[in-house]
Each structure stands twice: as C-alpha cells, then as structure tokens.
C-alpha cells in the first residue's frame, strides 16, 4: 500500500537511479532501460494479480506498443519518442478496452487462457505478414525527443531518463488508483465477488478497468522497449514473452508498486548473467528461481519487506 513513507522512498530510489546513469557503462544502462520498460508491463500484471487474475497474454499489448513505434517511424518518418510512447500506450489501451468486454467475464484459468489465445492471434498475424518481415521483424529508427536528436551515449541516457519519467508517472498513477474504491476492491473481489456485486458494484466493470490499465501499461512498456532494443519482431507477442512478465510479477509480489521495478531489474540482471555465464542453462536458472520463489516466497520479494516491517513493529 502506498503511504507517505513509501512515496518518499520511491522518489529517493528514482532520483538515485536517474543520477547514477552517467556513471554506468552503456550496456548496463541499456539493460536497465529495458528492465524499467518491462517493469511497466509487470505493473499492469500486478494490478490484475491483486484481483486474483493472471494474464498470460500481456505480450499482446507489449507488442502493440512496440509495433506502433516501429511502424510510425517506418511508414511516416515520425520518430518523436515522447509522442510515440503515448500513442503506443493509448493504442494498446484501446485494444484492451475492446478485448475487455469479453475478457472481464472470465476468471482464473479461463482468463489466463483467453488472454493467451488473443496474444497468440497477434503473433500468428505478424509471423505471416511478409511486409513486416515475418519472423525476422524489422528495425526501429533512432528516436528523437521533441526536436533533440542525440546519438551514442547521449541517446542511451535520454532514453533511460524518459523511461524513468514514464515509470514515475505510472507508479504514481497506479498508487493513487490502489487507494481509490476501484483499486481497493481488488482484495474483496478476489475474496467474494458475489458480495461485492450485491453491495451495488459492477464487478465486471471494475475488472474491465483493470484490463485497460494493464493494457495501457503494457503498451507503454513495449514502446519504450522497442526504442531501446532498436528492433521489433513477432516474438514480442509470443506466449513465452508473456510468461517472462508473469515470472517477474511472481518474483515481485503484489504488495508494493516499487517491487515491480526492482523485480524487473533483478530479472534482467539474472537473465543477462545466465545468458553470459551459463547460456545452455539460462532457462533452467529462471525456472528454478521461479519455482523457489513460488514455493518459499509466494508473496514475492515484496513480502520480505512486509515481514521486516512487522518484525520491527513487534520489537518497538
């Protein structure tokens, strides 16, 4: 839950992350940018996880956001990063709004499976579209920032700071949402949907809203990731991509907004490390980490913080 303390804590982390950037090697900065972009998708998953739903298809919105950026540059030559991120988010949000009419009626496994199916539809369409390079995808043109055209290290820095800025706004917005009636009804709906409905609330409406929020966040993340990676391909919509996001969500837990960002960073670091040091076993590493987290830390890393707090409260 967002409290004043965690707000200041988050702000401090944000400033630290922004300030550290110029002193960090470019490959690490790029990694962090992608991690913080992906963290937005995870944040969307957290919104859904809190109401008891897991989407195995957030890659749909991620891919939409990414392709909006890539296609805009390719078809119209428009490369402004700030605008494109917004358009990517809105585009994904519109799709989520439409899909939500259907998806909001489902729960549990069926919600997961339907969201999976919808993301695979996009994958299927993209793979078979020759003009978009089918499985190879195509590259994304260098983004510009409201007229500013950086290159090299400056480009990496600007993109990183933009990602942090989007992250900050998203984190704040989601934090506020969690304190609203709609956001706070997550636990009651998860506990007893019928009761909530009989108190006069449209549960389907609330879940529809959450699907849209998660969609927008997915699109924002995909747009930023596309610019950072410099390339888009249909794999961004594949179910294993969705699986990766779910992985981080489990790792992060649903208790704290900041956990999504820290968890995502940890995940990218882990994946990078595994790729470099033990490339044949990176899936095994991830799988084991996921397994251990689920079995021993089912509420994610965030729950460690909760436990620490409780211990401190008991002592004092």
């Amino acid at each position, binding site marked *: 839950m967002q409290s004043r303390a965690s707000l200041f804590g988050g702000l401090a982390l944000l400033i630290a992350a922004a300030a550290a950037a110029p002193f960090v090697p470019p490959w690490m900065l790029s990694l962090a940018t992608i991690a913080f972009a992906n963290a937005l998708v995870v944040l969307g998953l957290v919104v859904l996880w809190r109401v008891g739903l897991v989407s195995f298809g957030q890659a749909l919105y991620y891919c939409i956001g990414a392709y909006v950026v890539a296609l805009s540059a390719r078809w119209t030559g428009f490369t402004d990063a700030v605008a494109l991120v917004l358009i990517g988010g809105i585009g994904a949000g519109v799709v989520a709004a439409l899909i939500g009419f259907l998806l909001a009626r489902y729960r549990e496994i069926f919600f997961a499976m339907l969201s999976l199916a919808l993301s695979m539809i996009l994958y299927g369409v993209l793979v078979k579209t020759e003009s978009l390079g089918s499985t190879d995808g195509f590259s994304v043109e260098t983004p510009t920032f409201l007229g500013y055209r950086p290159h090299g290290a400056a480009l990496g820095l600007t993109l990183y700071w933009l990602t942090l800025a989007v992250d900050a706004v998203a984190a704040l917005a989601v934090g506020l*949402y969690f*304190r*609203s*009636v*709609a*956001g*706070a*009804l997550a*636990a*009651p709906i998860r*506990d*007893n949907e*019928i*009761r*909530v*409905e*009989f*108190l*006069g*609330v*449209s549960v389907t*409406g*609330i879940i529809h*809203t959450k699907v849209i929020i998660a969609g927008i966040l997915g699109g924002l993340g995909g747009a930023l990731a596309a610019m950072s990676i410099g390339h888009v391909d249909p794999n961004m919509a594949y179910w294993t991509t969705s699986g990766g996001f779910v992985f981080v969500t489990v790792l992060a837990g649903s208790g704290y907004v900041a956990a999504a960002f820290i968890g995502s960073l940890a995940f990218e670091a882990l994946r990078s490390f595994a790729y470099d040091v033990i490339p044949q076993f990176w899936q095994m590493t991830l799988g084991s980490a996921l397994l251990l987290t689920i079995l021993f830390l089912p509420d994610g890393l965030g729950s460690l913080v909760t436990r620490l707090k409780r211990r401190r409260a008991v002592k004092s």
Partner: protein
Amino acid sequence: MSDAPILDVRNLEKTFGLLVAAHDITVSVPAHQTVGVIGANGAGKTTFINMITGHLTPTKGSIRFEGADITGLPSRDIVRLGISRSFQVAQIFPTLTVFENMAVAAAIAQRKPGLFGNIATPVRSAATDAAADAAIDLFQIGRYRDVVASALPQGVRKLLDIAMAVAGAPRLLLLDEPTSGISIEEKFDLMNVVMAALKTRKITVLFVEHDMEIVATFADRVLAFYDGTVIADGTAHQTLDDPRVQELISGVRLKAGAHA
C-alpha cells in the same frame, strides 16, 4: 413515503427447463411490515428472494419496488435502488477484518456509482470509517472489530453479512435464513439484535426462516411456500395455525421449538 407498497409481486414464475421452481406468486408488502417466509427446502423461498434481488430473472410476472418495475434488473442496479439481502451462507470477505469488511461496504455506499466514482473516490476517509464503526456498534460485534473474518464464529459472520447489507441504507432487506447454523440458545439473541438494528434504520424486513418460534416472535405476517408457490398468507398466527401449513410444513401442531 409513497402509498405504493414497498414490494409488489405479481404472478411471478421461474422455470429452469422443465423444472418449475416457482409459480403464481402474488404478494404485496406495505412498508415497515415484517414478513416471515416459511417452507420446506426446495419450496421456492430462495428462488423467490433471488428473483427479487436480481440474481435470477423471472420467466413470467413482475416485481415492483416502491411502484417502480424492477423485474429482470441486474443485482447491482436493484441494490442501488434500495433493496438489499443477506445470505444463507454469510457472504463476507474472509481475508479482511470485520472493520475492513464494513469499511469496504461503507466506501461503496458513499461513492457515486459508475466508473468515475469508483476511480475518483478514495476508499478510506473519516466519513467511511465512522460509518463502519457505527454499523459495527449497531450490530454489537465491536468485540470482533479487528478479527479476520475467516476466524469469526458463525453468529458474528451472519451479523457482519447483515451489517454489510445495510451499509447502503436500503429500504427493504431480505434475510435468507438469518439464524441458520446458529445454536438454538443464540438464535433469539441474534434476531433481537438484528431486528432492533433494522428498526433503528427504518428498514422493512422480509426473512426466510425454518424455526417457527422465531417466525412467530418476530413476524407481523407470514408467507408459507410449498411446491413453488404461496399456500398461506396471513398474520403469524393465522398462517402457523393453518391446517394445511401444519400438515405440509411445520408438523402436526405448533409446539415449542417446532422446525420445518
């Protein structure tokens, strides 16, 4: 308060395929009349309540609330119009404390319904906290204020369920077996608390019960259900003394502690 009956049900019928769960139900309830509903399991009592509260759509007939037609409306709309219900199995939020349960109900009651209201209203405020505590006091479950709902004894669960149901200030409340699962010694205490609370809030009550003593004590009027329809409708004693009711529902003659 208008002259229209608070609840006016005409020729209500509900079939599921070939199964006729309820038929030919016509009842008119004036405001502030306490109505008891008796009948064996499967006689159609819960189907009746489910239709009034929008959980089921009637196959035929109409339901009017304070003169307005509410037939077939979804539950959440009916709740917003002023009808609420409690459940045979208390529907509460097991992972939240009693206070948190009430706070949720209070917050929902105090917001403007709809997307904007849901997002723009903070869930906790001084007003909702006060309303939650007031409800907890009214139903005398203050002892359990900070207990997680899954750990509550049955009686408190029932009271919490009812307390949540009235958070939105309904004018009509339907209680589905309020004392089910409660020991015989505690049934009367529970009903006393509930009825006193509802009287304070000026809520009209319709309750389903199997315990004939409870029905006789608290109901002004009793409807007897059998085989999907109402077979007797009068004052408590008229209905309970009706020979058909005694034969089909309550047993041979009304004795102390008789059950259906």
